[in-house]
């Protein structure tokens, strides 16, 4: 695509610049003494516009001879001769046109374009052509670097998307190992329990695979998934794990990113329940107020445990995902006391368009 011809605005600007040049040429023509003002305008404006279009073609030459190291001699030769040629053509046409207009003005008497004016036109033509060539080279370079930037940006977006996809499908493998260990322990003494746990595990995995493939799911589905995860962990932790789910029915149909709770619930187990001798209660609460959806996840923590100084990967993943999806419309707050850890998530309450 031609960087000037293809855009109406740029073309208008370009031609305006040439019109200004045309006015300058009018002054020159008037000062030559053979033409009056209207004739001079009639002489110079078409001539300058004509050369404007000639110079536009320089773009194709620039594309054909890209700027490369070691090609400078060739470039000078090409553009030197082309500029001389096109300027010569322009000057010849100009003097012809001058002669024609002069004849009309002087009623048949032949009028030659003054030699000084011919020289000025020729020189001007060469300079203008070379100038156009440089402008086109600049434009080409600019376009190329902008393209590279855009490609880089596109790559980054793509990588981010891929990352989000893997983040969402992340289920802690240790959860699986621990569950399998529990099943292995149950097999001898409680075969029915072992089978029950196998089924729960299968159900959870199937659900998380299905839901994980979607862009957004109903909050109710997400809650069910978290609850079936906790159901499995209950077998492992026994009495130590209690679960309370307080859901707002009007929030059930809101759309949320799938497996958003998973890393948070895993954290609640890993950094909460698993560190407490007596375990405790994990509570999940959903609330909808108008266009806002609020979700609370709370778990007890061990007072004496050292405060985790490292980054919390699970929480970071969720924050990243929400940020990518909702930007400033979503918020995550962490409220901790000595004994409790509470996450508050604020989302726009989106519903499926029916």
């Amino acid at each position, binding site marked *: 695509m031609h960087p000037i011809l293809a855009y109406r605005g740029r073309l208008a600007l370009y031609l305006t610049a040439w019109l200004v040049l045309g006015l300058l040429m009018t002054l020159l023509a008037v000062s030559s003494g053979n033409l009056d003002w209207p004739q001079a305008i009639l002489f110079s404006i078409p001539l300058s516009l004509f050369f404007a279009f000639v110079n536009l073609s320089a773009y194709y030459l620039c594309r054909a001879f890209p700027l490369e190291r070691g090609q400078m001699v060739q470039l000078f030769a090409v553009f030197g001769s082309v500029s001389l040629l096109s300027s010569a053509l322009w000057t010849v046409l100009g003097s012809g046109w001058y002669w024609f207009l002069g004849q009309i003005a002087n009623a048949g008497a032949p009028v030659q374009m003054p030699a000084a004016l011919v020289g000025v036109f020729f020189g001007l033509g060469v300079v203008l052509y070379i100038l156009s060539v440089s402008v086109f080279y600049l434009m080409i370079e600019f376009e190329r670097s902008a393209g590279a930037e855009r490609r880089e940006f596109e790559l980054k977006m793509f990588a981010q998307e891929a990352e989000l996809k893997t983040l969402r499908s992340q289920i802690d493998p*240790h959860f699986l*190992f*621990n569950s*399998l*260990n*529990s*099943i*292995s*322990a*149950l097999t*001898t*003494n409680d075969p029915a329990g072992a089978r029950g746990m196998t089924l729960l595990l299968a159900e959870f995995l199937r659900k998380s695979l299905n839901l994980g493939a979607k862009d957004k799911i109903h909050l109710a589905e997400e809650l069910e998934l978290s609850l079936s995860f906790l159901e499995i962990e209950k*077998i*492992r*932790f*026994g009495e130590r794990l209690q679960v309370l789910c307080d859901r707002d029915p009007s929030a059930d149909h809101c759309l949320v990113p799938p497996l958003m709770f998973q890393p948070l619930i895993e954290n609640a187990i890993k950094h909460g329940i*698993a*560190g*407490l*001798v007596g375990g405790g209660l994990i509570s999940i609460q959903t609330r909808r107020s108008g266009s806002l959806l609020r979700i609370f996840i709370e778990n007890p923590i*061990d007072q*004496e445990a*050292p*405060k985790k*100084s490292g980054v919390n990967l699970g929480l970071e993943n969720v924050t990243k995902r929400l940020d990518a999806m909702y930007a400033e419309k979503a918020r995550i707050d962490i409220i901790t006391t000595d004994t409790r850890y509470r996450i508050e998530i604020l989302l726009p309450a989106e519903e499926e368009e029916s």
Partner: protein
Amino acid sequence: MKTEKKIRALIVDDEALSRQIVLEYLASHPEIEVIGECSNGFEAVKEITEQDPDLVFLDIQMPKLNGFEVLELIDKKMAVVFITAYDQYALKAFEVHAVDYLLKPFSQQRFDEALSQAKAGFLSKSFPRIPEMAAVTQSGDLILERLLVREGSQVHVLPAETVDYVEAQDDYIQIQAGGRSYLKQMTLSELETQLDRKRFLRIHRSYILNIERITKIELYAKDSRVVILKDGKRLPISRSGYDKIKKLL
């Protein structure tokens, strides 16, 4: 002929089902007597101190103290078999001379292998005393976040920020924290490498100080200074200690 003495074993895991599977696998080994089960680190330290088992099946991630911290607090000879779902501790486990490292879930066959390893160890009496292990459990580039002190079968967990200063007492260190002092078998230099260097400074051959406790530094003779703590306590500072403090403050 002398009847062979039974091997006395302790099972430490916070999950009942995990303890159950060890019990089940042990059923076919009558030479091993299970003397107890513990579900957290504190209990484990208490039981090991009081009952002196030959063999401990030890989970790593547990409430209160993790498996490595339990070992750090014990100075007994015994065989340790780690049992965990996490493979990232395997290297550390062998650094503390664990007999074996079982990954959950494991088979009876794999469990039996670990047992024969332990028995072979008993015959050659090749188990190191645990304090040697403790030095290893604490090495590494992790900053010590809490100090563990055992008094009899009681364990004190001292968060690093509550420590005022630590004084060298021969092979022991005396830790001053929360208005009382605790004795621990460790050298000051060992401790120095593990504490957060932004907070704790070796100000003297015999002292490590929590710099947040400083109120002022006084010159009391030519070239010798004392630091005065918030509770009025005065500690000597060596010249290099003074340079370190100046650099940090």
